[in-house]
């Protein structure tokens, strides 16, 4: 009888455990803070379609990633920018570009009236810098004869001013403001840096050639110089072709030893060119780092004096991801990569210092995360952190940019978990990782 009781007790235990055995549920999906709007200032990394018009739209593009909802191909190919994911998670309307248009070549469809959209609050524009109005893709940088994309590249300083003008000068304290910039300050300066080094090298090459070759000629210095200028202007010009043109010109003007000593002369001139380029770089590198520090100071000041001072209550400041790990940087010399890293660090250090101690600012260190992703990709789910997912060859991608990349011009294979869409821009998967990290940091901050 007593044994029966014990058996009954065990049975009761079993019944009790069976009761209420409900399965998983989602729980409360409401954030702690109910934001009224999301307002974004920045560059291509936050741009949700400023240039998704005309020829760019016709090419199936508009954002700097693998464009379009291709989740039927792979669930990660959402085509969504991190700002879209964050807004959706916070229950806010899908962000749209506050301004659209293009100011480039009309025949290519790149001339579309610039239009402001009062109902839209994502001001980020591809090519935008912090305060300098001329960023990559701006028509002011067009090369003669080339097709112009004509990005407006309205800088962050003006983006903020435009917003304040639109809403009467104040942020609402329950709005989420996202700021992310600096990348184009790196890229534009690097472009100038590279062009400057090439020019310095070219000048040194010409000087060396003329110095070596002219004495053997009868007044041939001007002719040699002219030959160098003519050759250099060709799109196919290389150091070797310029050296060849100079030697040919010298020989024609009576320098009998020119052809025989071509190798020595070429080597000497080439060495002079490299030395001049290197000197330019070592002289100018610190200037670039200093300029980036200044840009960081300026962005920090904008956050404080234009955003916080005008009533914003929640400001996410994403720092500049480490551009030195991008395919763009990896294609350059180790010295240049080091320079890029120093530029990013200078910018981020100043930005972080500027907003340190601001309770209403969340500084999100994407630089560290991006660097970690490059060295330790597996936990992030990344399968490739070095190769652009988009086929950027001119035949497949007339702009050589993810701005017009979609499922039809990807490289072969599964690129769904690649880090980069093009030389600097993230894939939708990487954007999702950024969104998660921003939200994780907002959670730790106590906002969510």
């Amino acid at each position, binding site marked *: 009888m007593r044994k029966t009781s014990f058996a009954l007790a065990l049975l009761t*235990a079993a019944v009790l455990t069976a009761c209420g055995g409900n399965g998983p549920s*989602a729980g409360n999906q409401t954030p702690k803070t109910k934001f009224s709007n999301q307002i974004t200032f920045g560059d291509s990394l936050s741009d949700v379609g400023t240039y998704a018009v005309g020829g760019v739209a016709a090419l199936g593009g508009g954002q700097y990633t693998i464009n379009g909802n291709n989740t039927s191909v792979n669930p990660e190919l959402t085509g969504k920018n991190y700002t879209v994911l*964050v807004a959706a998670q916070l229950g806010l309307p899908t962000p749209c570009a506050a301004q659209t248009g293009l100011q480039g070549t009309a025949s290519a469809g790149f001339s579309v009236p610039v239009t402001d959209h009062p109902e839209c609050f994502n001001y980020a524009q591809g090519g935008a810098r912090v305060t300098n109005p001329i960023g990559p893709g701006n028509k002011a940088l067009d090369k003669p004869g080339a097709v112009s994309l004509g990005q407006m590249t309205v800088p962050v300083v003006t983006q903020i001013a435009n917003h304040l003008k639109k809403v009467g000068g104040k942020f609402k304290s329950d709005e989420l403001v996202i700021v992310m910039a600096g990348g184009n300050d790196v890229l534009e300066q690097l472009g100038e840096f590279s062009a400057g080094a090439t020019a310095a090298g070219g000048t040194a090459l010409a000087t060396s050639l003329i110095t070596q070759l002219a004495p053997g000629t009868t007044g041939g210095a001007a002719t040699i110089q002219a030959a160098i200028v003519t050759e250099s202007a060709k799109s196919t010009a290389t150091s070797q072709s310029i050296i060849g043109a100079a030697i040919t010109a010298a020989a024609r003007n009576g320098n009998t030893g020119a052809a025989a000593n071509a190798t020595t002369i070429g080597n000497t001139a080439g060495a002079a060119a490299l030395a001049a380029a290197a000197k330019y770089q070592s002289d100018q590198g610190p200037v670039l780092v200093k300029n980036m520090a200044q840009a960081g100071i300026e962005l920090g000041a904008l956050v404080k004096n234009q955003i916080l001072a005008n009533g914003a209550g929640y400001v996410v400041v994403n720092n500049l991801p480490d551009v030195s790990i991008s395919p763009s940087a990896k294609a350059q010399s180790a010295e240049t990569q080091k320079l890029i890293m120093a530029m990013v660090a200078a910018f981020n250090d100043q930005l972080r210092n500027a907003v340190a101690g601001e309770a209403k600012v969340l500084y999100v260190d994407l630089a560290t995360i991006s660097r970690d992703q490059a060295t330790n990709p597996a936990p992030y789910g990344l399968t490739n952190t070095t190769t652009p997912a988009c086929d950027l060859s001119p035949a497949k991608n007339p702009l050589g940019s993810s701005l017009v990349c979609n499922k039809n011009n990807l490289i072969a294979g599964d690129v769904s978990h690649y880090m980069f869409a093009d030389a600097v821009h993230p894939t939708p998967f990487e954007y999702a990782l950024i*969104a998660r*990290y921003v939200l994780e940091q907002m959670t730790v901050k106590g906002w*969510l």
Partner: protein
Amino acid sequence: MNVSKNVVKMLVAAGALAAATGAMAQSKGQFAMSVGVNQLVPKVESGAISAPALPNSLGDVGKDTQPVLLVNYGLTDNISVETALGTPYKHKLYGAGAIQGTGQLGTVKALPAIALVQYRFFTPDTPFRPYIGLGVTRAMFMKETGSFAMTALTNPGAGVPTTFSIDNKWTYTGQLGVQMNVDQHWYANVAFLKTRLRTDVHFSTGQYQHMKLDPNAYILTVGYKF
């Protein structure tokens, strides 16, 4: 908290009674029941959430205290069997490691069903009778409940809340206890149980996480021998 206080008072009272009167205790063929509280404290060593996640995204599990009813039966004067009945333990799940500071990410209800065989030292009439036990445990997890933060960290903006489930496990438990006999019927009981428990958490995103929970259980009860 009040429950714990009351239990302490009862135990103090029981101890006083034990000192005042002679005692008898669990003997062969005797059936006993005790009620009290059990605090279940997971000793967590979390694995990292699988990709895609911040490296070293860990979890932590909070403790919970619930009422418990212990039922035991003396097979001999020294060997007894015991089981426990109780309400489910509600554990809060927290982010740890790389996601330390994200706070509560979910909750889960755990119900361990347990059957122990015990050896009780000394004779049944000893006032303080220590015992050891070894048993089989079925750890059951239910009502796994996610949160905004869990979705934000795993699949933001997709409109699909992240859910998770935890594998139920068969495992074993060791027990150390002391029974303090007050009189022929009443007794107080203190026990510590250690369970080996390793399980896996499966997220609806396809991610998983291995968790070593190895919970400690601290039981205080007051009982009656029939």
